[in-house]
């Protein structure tokens, strides 16, 4: 098989305030956007933004852990391909993401339940 030295995956914990800067730095360093997703664990959102290197397949993931009320800036100005991913995080989990370049306003998925994978709402209808 073609021999490539594939580096170990990197999981970098970062802050909301550094997200755009780090995304831009990775893009300039020769990484292409691979995926983004949210998890809701222990009443916190874990957001993961993965980038893979053009040449050596190295995977670099930016991880931010936030309270559900924290607003996250969209990376779509830097990474246009993140549009669906961010809309998905917003719609399925209820992550507050501002300035998505194409915001589907909770109509990306035709689902009846609001933010089905995010925090359970108390006292209201589902």
């Amino acid at each position, binding site marked *: 098989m073609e021999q*490539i030295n594939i580096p170990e995956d990197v999981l970098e914990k970062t802050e909301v305030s550094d997200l755009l800067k780090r995304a831009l730095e990775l893009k300039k360093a020769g990484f292409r956007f*691979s995926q983004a997703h949210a998890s809701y664990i222990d009443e916190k959102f874990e957001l993961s933004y993965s980038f893979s290197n053009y040449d050596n397949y190295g995977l670099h993931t930016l991880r931010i852990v936030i309270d559900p009320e924290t607003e996250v800036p969209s990376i779509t100005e830097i990474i*246009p391909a993140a549009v*669906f991913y961010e809309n998905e995080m917003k719609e399925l989990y209820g992550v507050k993401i501002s300035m998505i370049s194409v915001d589907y306003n909770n109509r*990306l*998925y035709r*689902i009846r339940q609001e933010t089905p994978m995010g925090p359970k709402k108390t006292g209201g209808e589902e």
Partner: protein
Amino acid sequence: MGNRSVIPFGPQHPVLPEPIHIDLVVEDEKVVEAVPSIGFIHRGLESLAGKRDFNQLVYVAERTCGICSFQHGMGYCEAVEHIFGVEVPKRAKYLRTIWAELARMHSHLLWLGLLADGFGYENLFYQCWRIRERILDLHELTAGGRLIFSVNKVGGVLKDIPEDKLKEILRTLDEVDDELRVIRSVFFEDRSVISRLKGVGVLTKEQVNELGAVGPFARASGVRVDMRTLGYAAYPELSFAPIVSNDGDSYARCFIRMMELFQSIKLIREAIGKIPAEKELEVPIKGNPDGEYFMRVEQPRGEAFYYVKGSGKPFLERMRIRTPTFANIPALCEMLKNADLADVGLLVLTIDPCISCTER
């Protein structure tokens, strides 16, 4: 500026077996903007992570898609196996590789048939699907199912392929190889095929990278990315290098998939030649997954991404599946800009869209 109007494409359309909607903003007969909508059949499979234990999720992962079902199951299992830190027996790795390449062949033949039908060459469509049936027969012979194999498990595989069936695979592939050479000459040399595909829907390498496209769609634009290079299953022991074209048009996408069919035959032959004669097909798995892993595998449509996170309990905290079509839609919309309205159906087909994957 010509007359500008919006034409809805889908969710029901003759070229689409599954629903996706694209609003096409057109000026006269030229597309100037394409706005996609998905989510018509979103199934919420990922949310089952908290409701089924990690072993049961193999079957959930397999049902993400009816075409690349095997690779979904394998990708999920490999992710969990990494968390456990186990290495599956070598024979299981080779079996996974053989089944994965057979699945790639049936998927590419399905797509080539749909493409031929899309540009009005029905006889070619019949021929592609006739050959595909022979691959599906091999699936049934070896796994019992024609589309859903259910042979993967965390730690290995559930079934072996005995010697006589391996020989039957080789015999069938020899015949399929000859038949593919006939249809290859039609796809590559027929004037009407070339006129419908050559120079249509061009995307540059830079555009593909910017928009995060994957798989044959990206490789057709010169992006040398194929996750088999990462070395999962038995690929590190086989002669493999990604097939790439620099043309970036619909013809190049057809070329890549056609050549990958021959590459799959070569990989299966090599894997059958090298498969070790051991009895163990799985390693015992003790306990529950505790940790997280990002796994990438190359499905017929491109890189599929599995994220698995466990906390030492039978139920995972998170299972994430990012399918190749989900990654390819932004590049598709870019490709549709400046396209002729008459080419839209064909261009949508050239990414080999799998909406059931996308709507996991």
